[in-house]
């Protein structure tokens, strides 16, 4: 083998710097790979290129102004990020959210999960080396969802649509019809990806058995979301601590069994189907009319002193918001528990001993959003 011969000669390991301008680092992430031939011996990740101090900035704004910053921590699934923050504020202030607003929130969050997973499929496909095709496939489905979001919230990425207590304004009158239309196209998109990846010999050969992490290790690293479930741990906040109306919905928690890159991909693909099912049930149960904000809302939202930690299931895992209030109209301390950051910790564990090309796949399979890692 390579290494046996290497011992006979006086060889040196090669350090290569991947990022922050490397095409496969999904943003401004940098890792230094120590390689021996084509094998990775060590990975040194560097984060912080996108640190903006979003949490600290939130402490200087009132509660409603903070929503915009939360959008920008997780720009691929902004509704899910908003939701955690808004629900934390509601828990502190003791606000009751009207039923209809809760259903709309659920539909939007699940749609955003779908759009985020499609984005993952596209980017991951490019990591495996297909020239752009999966990227455009994923983009196509995401585009339909984003158009819908634009109609509702007026924005394509940073929605700032959820408010403490409910929603900023009501959805459009043709909301249900539009969602059904989008769902139809999504269902076809899922089939396309199944054909493009799951049944592709090269894709399967590249991803199966690569980047293995055991369930114990994954828990120790604090991983969550599909990356954890791929290792066989059925941990899903939607099921474990149902929020919104998830307790009234029938859905499966998808788990893998091998904890490799293929399972992480396949978990996400199956989650897409589950999300479609959830949205269909939501549409059936959602009332057509009704209030979307509590009747009495104060002009300036103030919370009693206290602290709260609230977590929801974002596309990449558990997105938690820790909020401390000492009374008044702004948080005393805000801390975001980012799923991406925890998942990223396991990068070294998963990629050491793999080939260089596999290290890229492992990084892609965690599906990081750097602005959530750095905040």
């Amino acid at each position, binding site marked *: 083998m390579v290494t046996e011969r290497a011992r006979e000669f006086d060889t040196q390991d090669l350090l290569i710097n991947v990022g922050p301008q490397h095409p496969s680092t999904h943003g401004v992430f940098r890792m230094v790979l120590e390689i021996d031939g084509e094998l990775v*011996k060590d990975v040194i990740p560097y984060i912080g290129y996108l640190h903006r101090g979003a949490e600290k900035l939130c402490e200087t704004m009132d509660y409603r102004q903070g929503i915009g910053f939360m959008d920008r921590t997780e720009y691929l699934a902004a509704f899910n990020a908003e939701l955690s923050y808004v629900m934390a504020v509601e828990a502190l202030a003791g606000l009751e959210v009207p039923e209809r607003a809760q259903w709309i929130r659920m539909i939007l969050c699940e749609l955003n999960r779908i759009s985020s997973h499609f984005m993952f499929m596209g980017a991951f496909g490019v990591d495996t080396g*297909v020239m*752009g095709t999966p990227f455009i496939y994923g983009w196509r489905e995401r585009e339909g969802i984003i158009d819908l979001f634009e109609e509702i919230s007026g924005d394509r990425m940073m929605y700032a649509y959820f408010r403490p207590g409910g929603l900023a304004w009501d959805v459009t009158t043709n909301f249900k019809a539009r969602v059904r239309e989008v769902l139809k196209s999504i269902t076809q998109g899922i089939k396309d990806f199944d054909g493009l990846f799951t049944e592709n010999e*090269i894709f399967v*050969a590249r991803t199966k058995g690569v980047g293995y992490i055991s369930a114990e290790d994954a828990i120790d690293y604090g991983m969550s979301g599909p990356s954890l479930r791929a290792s066989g741990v059925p941990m899903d906040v939607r099921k474990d601590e149902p929020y919104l109306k998830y307790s009234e919905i029938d859905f499966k928690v998808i788990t893998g069994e*091998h904890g*490799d890159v293929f399972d992480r991909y396949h978990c996400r693909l199956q989650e897409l189907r589950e999300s479609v099912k959830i949205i269909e049930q939501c549409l059936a149960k959602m009332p057509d009319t009704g209030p979307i904000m509590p009747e009495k809302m104060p002009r300036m939202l103030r919370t009693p002193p206290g602290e709260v930690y609230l977590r929801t299931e974002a596309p990449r895992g558990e997105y938690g918001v820790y909020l401390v209030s000492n009374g008044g109209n702004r948080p005393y301390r805000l801390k975001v528990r980012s799923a991406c950051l925890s998942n990223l910790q396991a990068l070294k564990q998963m990629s050491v001993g*793999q080939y*260089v090309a596999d290290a890229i796949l492992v990084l892609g399979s965690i599906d990081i959003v750097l602005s959530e890692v750095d905040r």
Partner: protein
Amino acid sequence: MNTDLFGLQVNVWADAALRLQLIVVFMTVVVMGLIWAERRILGRFQQRIGPQKTGPFGLLQSVADAVKLVGKEDLRPKNADPWTFELAPFLVFIPIFMGFVIVPFLVGWNIKVLELGLLYFVAISSVNIVGWVMAGWGSDNRYAMIGGLRAAAQSISYELPLVLSLLAVAMVAGTLNLDEIVRQQGSVPYIVWQPMAFAIFFIAALAELNRAPFDIPVGESEVVGGPFVEYSGIRWSMFMLAEYAGLLIMAVVGASVFLGGYAWPLGEELGLGWQVVLVGAKAGLIIFAVFWIRASLPRLRIDQLMGYSWKILLPLVLVQILVNGLVLVYGWSEAILGVVGLAGVVALVSITGRAANRPRQIPARAAALKGEAA
């Protein structure tokens, strides 16, 4: 020493120079067309339009790109080895260009008919790997170096199945003269008797050309362009020109050796127009398949790439050569060749599928790899 050119008696050297000139112009134009075609075809595969603003249907896109590339600054990294770095594009470009000498585009339209044409083609087309390694080594860039070494390993591995699959046809044809091989296919092209050799030739050609799914040396998502990462402007465009010229020559040779070139199915007596159409259509089919594969298949990993060549392609092509030998020595019917070849294609497909769907070996494999790396 005079020769006949368009019914005129000209000096043999002047004739060669003229034909070379023609080929250079022809190659450049066709390569530009290929680049345009690839972008349009990939666009169709990916549900977008592709270039459309420059000229009708974006036809002038390649011209615009060429003008831009020529106008760019010719950069050289400070620590790069000047000679190695600057010579590398020529060493990639010239061998490919020299390969065109024997290509039988039309009857009597090769630059030179060589008795050992196939051997010459195989030999000259593998020289360009020196340029790749030089580019990788001389750039003073670690991505480039990894890419250059990958290219060398890949080229050596896939040279063998490529040469042997061409040899299988040469055995049956009994000649290495490309023109002669084409003429023999007037009624039945060799793909009928040697389907497995064609499949292996096509796969190995993809690897030789560093096209997807074997584009490991230039893998955008891993080594960011590999040996070309430090090149810009005219030197970079020479690499690109060489890549597409290589694709063109490989497609024309494949069409000549396996698909009957200009001869099949209309015979060689037909007019020039039909021959152009036939060769163009056959080569175009191969080139289209290459683009199609690029749009849909992920990249192999380096160990899978090597294993596929040495463990699957090489044994199969050796079996084909053995069968060819037996049939020739004992004078058996040619039908045996076709049957064996078809069985070989089925074997190739099923072995490939089985290799890809092997059960996972985790965590044993991960542990073994870790131990190896430690």
